[in-house]
């Protein structure tokens, strides 16, 4: 055991030193002499060292161009951070193992591009420096790639991009991301720095799809001595990210150290630990005890946590398009009548319900999209709380005495969500319905959604296309051309299908607006509030940049 610890210490010390190569012997010495045990998640080891400058990209969609400029060396503090994660990283280091929360792999791997939630633009802060589609052949997208190395020293090339996309789209490889990239037909390599992705049909959001997938090292997967299993489970995955895995304990923790060969660099975090803590109360306790510096906080704990550590705590909403709505039976039963669906919409006091979420939620704007989604229609607003109008609409529809309205909700909710559902039940009762709450298992719900079994319940569910804040994803659940979908409105289908084939960004947005307006006038659901996930962190120690899940984009975290 002692030998192992010595080995780990030596390796870690070496990597620390390597990460700061060129930074200065003095800084490396200070860090190298630091306490090896970062398990306690104590505050950053505040040393001062110049940081290698990172690119400052400019962004645009469709034909983005990066102009990395080498900023003058600046003085930054370096340190370590421990954050609580609830992720797949703990179980496997294979980023294809999950279709959700994939951003947890951000430290180790790179995407072709990233999405900046402040602008909703897809920016060349990944392995692509620019990309554009061929205006003559709109199924061809050209991605220009940057010079970068895998952390084992092998150069990154377009062959890796080709391998990655082919690997993910091959069902034999069982990648969970297959559905995200289902429009990819083939990939060509023009030269080591240029990859051409050919889609089955014009796909205006191919660039957005690329945020789903982490670029994989072809040479590792094709190495008979290593391969996919080694990459996933050896604890030494090869990536191009800002960090390399120093120690990985399956289902418990992932210790990262800054990569000496990373093209991206970091803003001061040279050691980062993701501790797998799935239980909300334990995360809150660990944060309160100072064992971790950032957590996804249980909503009811946020206010209390903000008062800890002498006020050096901040909270922010993870940028997401998750929301709560109540989808209703569109084809059968009372809710097949438009007047009934509108009655339900006017019955909800969404402003009040948003208040349940400790000030982090907002009322949905009468549409399935949130303000952060591309395609959000600013001309469409909330239906408005008007129970009298609801009763009138129900009477007009012949349901003056109401009807049975079981509200299905998923089990295992945050108490705030349960309170939200209860409030909606009361609202439906108030307009004369006989509402009840039915708790259902998530897989039963999923079968219900996809399997098109008869809908007898009003359900609460949330769409969360992580990293893909685009109407093409959010509205596709409702498009009626597929047998698995449930909303059948010809006007909506026409506008939606035109939108997803329109390559021009502005024109596509207008088409989505049209689809959103149709859906607002003939809603298949009652939209209620956004559904916030709140990250709480030690702002007296760290500055977290605004990415979708800021606590795990370690390269964007600065030491205060």
């Amino acid at each position, binding site marked *: 055991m002692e030998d192992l610890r010595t080995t780990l210490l030596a390796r870690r010390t070496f990597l620390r030193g390597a990460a700061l190569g060129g930074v200065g012997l003095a800084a490396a010495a200070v860090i190298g002499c630091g306490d090896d045990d970062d*398990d306690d998640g104590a505050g950053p080891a505040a040393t001062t060292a110049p940081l290698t400058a990172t690119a400052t990209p400019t962004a645009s969609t469709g034909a983005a161009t990066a102009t990395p400029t080498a900023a003058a060396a600046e003085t930054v503090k370096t340190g370590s951070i421990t954050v609580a994660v609830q992720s*797949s990283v*703990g*179980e*496997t280091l*294979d980023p294809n*193992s999950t*279709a*959700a929360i994939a951003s947890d792999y951000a430290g180790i791997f790179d995407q072709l591009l990233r999405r900046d939630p402040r602008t909703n633009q897809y920016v060349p802060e990944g392995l692509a420096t620019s990309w554009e589609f061929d205006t003559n052949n709109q199924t061809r997208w050209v991605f220009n790639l940057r010079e970068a190395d895998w952390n084992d020293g092998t150069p990154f090339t377009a062959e890796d991009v080709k391998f990655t996309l082919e690997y993910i789209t091959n*069902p*034999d490889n*069982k990648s*969970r991301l*297959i*559905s*995200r990239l*289902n429009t990819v037909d083939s990939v060509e390599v023009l030269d080591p720095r240029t990859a051409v992705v050919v889609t089955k049909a014009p796909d205006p959001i191919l660039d957005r799809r690329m945020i789903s997938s982490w670029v994989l090292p072809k040479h590792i997967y094709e190495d008979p001595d290593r391969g*996919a*299993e080694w990459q*996933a*489970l050896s604890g030494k995955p090869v990536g191009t990210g800002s960090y390399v895995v120093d120690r990985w*304990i*399956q*289902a*418990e*923790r992932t210790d990262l150290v800054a990569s000496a060969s990373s093209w991206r660099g970091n803003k001061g975090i040279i050691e980062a630990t993701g*501790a*797998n*803590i*799935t*239980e909300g*109360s*334990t995360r809150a*306790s*660990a944060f*309160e*005890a100072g*064992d971790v510096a950032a957590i996804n906080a249980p909503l009811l704990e946020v206010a209390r946590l903000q008062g800890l550590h002498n006020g050096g705590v901040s909270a922010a909403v993870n940028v997401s398009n998750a929301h709560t709505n109540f989808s209703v039976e569109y084809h059968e039963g009372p809710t097949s009548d438009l007047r009934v669906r509108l009655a339900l919409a006017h019955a909800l006091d969404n402003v009040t319900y948003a208040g349940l979420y400790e000030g982090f939620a907002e009322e949905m704007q009468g549409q399935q999209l949130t303000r952060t989604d591309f395609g959000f229609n600013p001309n469409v607003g909330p239906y408005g709380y008007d129970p009298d109008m609801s009763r009138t609409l129900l009477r007009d529809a012949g349901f003056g005495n109401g009807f049975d309205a079981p509200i299905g909700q998923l089990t295992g909710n945050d108490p705030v969500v349960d309170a939200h559902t209860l409030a909606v039940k009361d609202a439906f009762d108030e307009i004369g319905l006989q509402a009840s709450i039915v708790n259902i*298992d*998530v*897989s*039963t719900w*999923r*079968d219900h959604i*996809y*399997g098109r079994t008869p809908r007898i319940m009003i359900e609460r569910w949330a769409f969360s*296309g992580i990293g893909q804040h685009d109407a093409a*994803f959010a509205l*596709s*659940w409702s498009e009626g051309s*597929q*047998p*698995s979908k449930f909303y059948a409105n010809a006007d909506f289908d026409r506008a939606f299908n035109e939108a997803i084939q329109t390559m021009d960004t502005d024109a596509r947005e207008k088409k989505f607006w049209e689809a959103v307006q149709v859906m607002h006038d003939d809603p298949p659901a009652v939209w209620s509030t956004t559904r916030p996930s709140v990250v709480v962190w030690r702002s007296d120690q760290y500055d977290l940049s605004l990415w979708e899940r800021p606590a795990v984009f370690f390269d964007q975290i600065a030491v205060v």
Partner: protein
Amino acid sequence: MDTGYIARRALQFAVVLWLLVTILFIIPRLQGDPILLLTEGDIEPAEIEKLRVAYGLDRPVTVQYLDYLGGLATGDFGTSIKTSQEVSDLIIQRIQRTLPLVIPAKILALVVAIPLGTIAAVRRGWLDTFAVWMSLLFQSVPNFFVAILLILLFGVKLHWLPTFGSGGLDHHILPVAVLASYPIARYTRLMRAQVSDAMHSDYVRTARAKGLAEVVMVRRHVMRNALLPIVTLIGLDFGTLIGGTIIIENVFSWPGFGTLTLDAVLRKDYPVIQGAGLTIGFLVLTGSLLADIAYGYIDPRIRRR
């Protein structure tokens, strides 16, 4: 030992194990399609079908069942859908992480409960009152709640112990204490009741009449008889204790068998759910079988039934 008795017990063991295997095969499949759970987002039916083929879920259920039974016979529990690891490897790895909690918890429970139950029954007084109330408390309060309270007290307020994880010896203290709390309560109650009964038995009266010292009498005559049901429970409870780690490991973020099982259930990782369920069931059945055999050995009346 009567070989017929052991054979009957072994046959019962095999039948129950087969039923368990069958139930574990059926139940997860009643709860929905794992492919839909794995591929979040917009997925077309054709792609769902491709994945179903890749996972072998397109085959008739009976074929899957027979394949599963055949695999079990050769020690093949299948491959985790989530991590692509062999389930048997995964279970062995994670049980190795859980045993350092379960075994000390078991020992702690016995070390505390047997003397406490005995002394409470023999001496009565405040210790008896304490034992009764302590037993009532730990049998009534869910152990995950006890876990949260202990984390708040020793991790957050006093900073004596870590709040999560499995690093050093100090990480073991709270989860072991919580896992031991229910068995302590249960064994203490049982031991107290057994000793109380024994203290009023004829053979104890005879021992007293012969002038045997109280301590010797309790140790030689009372405890020996009173321990019989405890011996049975030790066997039966081992599997239960492993199963009990499902919640406790989750609260303490302990990467053991419990978190593996819970995670598999939440992600509908069929092979792991089946493997974990089978492991718990096997341990309970084995404990039960061994207890039956031991009991039959200790008490000849049992094996004559």
